[in-house]
């Protein structure tokens, strides 16, 4: 291999790593965002619990009355 071949290999590898890592970070961020969006689309346990709590409170108030 000539000296230029080693230089080309070194610079080619550098660009491959820098671009590859950039792509990997972006992909990971997108996956995390998709996971978060999907999780946010699920009904919250708090939201599910609220009507039940209200019903219990109403019943309790009626019983006391």
């Amino acid at each position: 291999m000539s000296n230029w071949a080693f230089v080309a290999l070194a610079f080619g590898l550098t660009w491959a790593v820098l671009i590859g890592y950039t792509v990997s970070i972006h992909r990971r961020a997108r996956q995390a965002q998709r996971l978060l969006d999907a999780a946010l689309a699920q009904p919250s346990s708090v939201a599910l619990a609220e009507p039940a709590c209200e019903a219990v409170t109403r019943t309790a108030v009626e019983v006391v009355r």
Partner: protein
Amino acid sequence: MKRHRDAEDPTSVQRGVPLSRWLVLLGPVALLALLGAQAFGFLTSAPDRDMGHLQKIMYVHVPAAWMAMIAFTVVFGASLLYLWRRDERYDLMAASAAEIGVVFTGLALALGSIWGKPTWGIWWTWDPRLTSTAILFLIYAGYLALRGFTDDMERRARWSAAVGVLAYLNVPIVYLSVRWWRTLHQLPSSPSTVDPMYAWGLRLNAIAFLLAFVYFLGRRYHAARVERLAERRVEEISLGGAYV
């Protein structure tokens, strides 16, 4: 002892983690800086007396090694801050920097090997600088693997911070190895030790790599925070409890 504080408060689940405009701009800026610095290095440096055109590998090998050292210094600082403040954001910062440090260390090792073959006649030798750098790579790869051992966020952060502080002991050993044991690897290269013709090429490439490093760190930290938010939300749903 301070309590572990989550990186995200309950309101940030709905808000998300905003990405700074500066960080978005930094990507193309770093790309242009890398292209410009490498072009400058190629156009302004005549072949070296001993190494010929192989000298140009210095413009990527040396900055890659420097960025690895900076990354591990960030891991050390963020780990200390986590142990002191118990704020999970420092843990996420340390983990992000460790991953980038491993990437740059691997790159520096590979580039050193490519440079070593035509100049030393071998791809690899158990020279103190090479060996201590390979150990550094393995230690921080181990740090990243350790983070997968437990799902308990607080324990993961505490263990990682302890390893992040201890692992840093190897960094000065790597740096000083070429002074302590004078073997095959040359003394550290810097703009003050190389021929003046190569100094600006090295400086500009180091600055360009630094911009790329800051960009990587910002994006990786942002991704880590979004991941953490998603984890918390999934935890909340699976536990069926209130988000506290």
